[in-house]
């Protein structure tokens, strides 16, 4: 019934309105999404795929990819564990300051990444709060890999928690309590009851978190120091090459990032579909 009404109301709009609206939507999509994506690949393959490959095999590009990957491999598990803990504490317990904590989790989303980077420099830089202590122990955080990981982790912190909190809130804890009454330990309850119930949301959060972590530019740019071959992540490498007018090198690296984004998108869609199938089930 509702379905019928919806179809008939859309039919009642004049044809030219529908055509115009569709065209507008398509134009916007083309201008702002499809075209830039195509440009990336066109520029990357402009002088043949050999040059594309060789610019990716360039030691600096490889180092940048390795660093980006390393940052993701460290930061994403950190945020996954943090997200699980935060979601568990915030949905399973009622305590004072709970809503303040819920807001706090969103700070990395609200704050500009550049500020996040500067905050790290102010804390761990040579003239920062812990600067002299770190110097004395010969520990480098800013302008080194740890700084890049911290910046990436900070910016991507809320993704997993944000996915899990609403789901765990709505699922409640009765199933977990039931598991306990049946003799399951805390770990058994987590692995056999909690995790299976949240696994799709968790995966979804991890994918979003990874996608954002690979592409992070602002915060990392501040703490990196731009040391070629050492503290350049893939996005920083792209910017550097672009500023040197090495278009092919810049866009080859960019095409890798774009490809990653497309893969992420596909994975995300797949998980969403899975989630829907299960819900219907």
């Amino acid at each position, binding site marked *: 019934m509702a379905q019928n009404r919806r179809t008939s109301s859309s039919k009642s709009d004049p044809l030219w309105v529908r055509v115009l609206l569709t065209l507008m939507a398509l134009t916007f999509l083309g201008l702002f999404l499809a075209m830039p994506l195509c440009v990336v690949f066109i520029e990357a393959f402009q002088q043949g795929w050999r040059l594309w490959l060789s610019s990716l095999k360039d030691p600096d590009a490889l180092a940048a990819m390795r660093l980006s990957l390393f940052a993701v491999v460290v930061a994403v598990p950190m945020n996954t564990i943090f997200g699980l803990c935060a979601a568990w504490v915030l949905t399973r317990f009622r305590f004072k300051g709970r809503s303040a904590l819920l807001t706090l989790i969103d700070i990395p989303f609200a704050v500009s990444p550049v500020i996040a980077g500067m905050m790290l420099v102010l804390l761990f830089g040579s003239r920062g709060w812990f600067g002299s202590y770190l110097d004395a122990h010969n520990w480098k955080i800013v302008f080194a890999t740890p700084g890049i990981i911290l910046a990436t982790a900070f910016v991507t912190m809320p993704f997993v928690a944000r996915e899990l909190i609403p789901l765990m809130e709505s699922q409640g804890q009765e199933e977990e309590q*039931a598991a306990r*009454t049946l003799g399951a330990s805390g770990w058994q309850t987590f692995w*056999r009851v909690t995790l299976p119930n949240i696994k799709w949301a968790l995966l979804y959060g991890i994918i979003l978190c990874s996608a954002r972590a690979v592409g992070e530019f602002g915060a990392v740019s501040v703490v990196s120091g731009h040391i070629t071959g050492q503290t350049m992540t893939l996005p920083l490498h792209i910017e550097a090459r672009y500023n040197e007018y090495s278009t092919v090198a810049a866009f080859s690296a960019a095409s890798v990032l774009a490809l990653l984004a497309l893969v992420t998108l596909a994975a995300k869609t797949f998980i969403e579909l899975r989630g829907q199938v299960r819900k219907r089930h």
Partner: protein
Amino acid sequence: MSIEVKGVTKKFGDFNALGGVNLDIHTGELVALLGPSGSGKTTLLRIIAGLETPDSGSVIFHGNDATDQPTQDRQVGFVFQHYALFRHMTVAENIAFGLRVRPRKLRPNNTEIKNRVTNLLQLVQLEGLAERYPSELSGGQRQRVALARALAVEPKVLLLDEPFGALDARVRQELRRRLRKLHDELGVTTVFVTHDQEEALEVSDRVVVLNKGHIEQIGTPDEVYLEPKNAFVLNFLGNVNRFRGRADHGQVRIGDLTLDAPEHAALVDAPVSGFVRPHDIDITRHHNGDSASLIPATVTFIASLGPFVRVELERENGEPLDALLTRERYEELSLQSGEPVFIRARRLRVFADDVKPGGEDYSI
């Protein structure tokens, strides 16, 4: 296994859920915790299960203090109000869960688990549904899966939180009987929470009536129904008519009636209430000079309830009354709406009213 609850208190914020509860449950008993919502009955059940920790007091299982024992070591079967079945597991996996999480040494092998699941499915009459998911079952079926899952670990105590609350009347009646039968077969100590007095009276060996975090009365269904200790228990266990009156030196006056009430000898001109169940009211047309035990009233409405007939009446002071007559008696009288009649209370219980500061005067 016997359960002893000693001086248990529990607060949620400013709300007193339980205020010093003492309760003995004997081995093999089927006990109902009965009370209105907010009376603390579910909290008490969850404290017995270890899902809630008491602020003070202790829970003793078979002579051993279990107050600090974690839930998973208590060997209690708990059936949740909304069943809490594991939604990502099939019925069979749900039932097997308690066996599969056992430490390797105590865990039965796969064939044993399979047999156990099959037996339990038979016990709750759900053969053939082993591979279904909870979302594919009806409410009554889910309830039975929850019961089978709780029984799979051979619990020492079975605890059920409003086990039939979310089901429709038919299914509820059937499952009620099934629970009683199951309990008689297995002999496991069983405690269930309910707000339905009929359910409590029908199923249990003993009823614990709770109100505002306190136990009002503990007794067999007959005891709490026929010998209620106070006005709350009387009120909660079924419909009742209330007559306001006054007690003075062992005499109770209700309207023109004067009754002896030696149990209230200590009261001096205090407000009391007389309570009569609708089926304890008889209706007559003539007072035969016996006006001392009769109260005049007018029939206002007659509702036929199959084997019974409910007659609504109004007293001379405007207070409404309900009487429940057998169909035979009703036909004998052939009452008409609007007719003046007399009523006689076959069984009247008098309780002193709660003395509230500035309380109203209830004299009639």
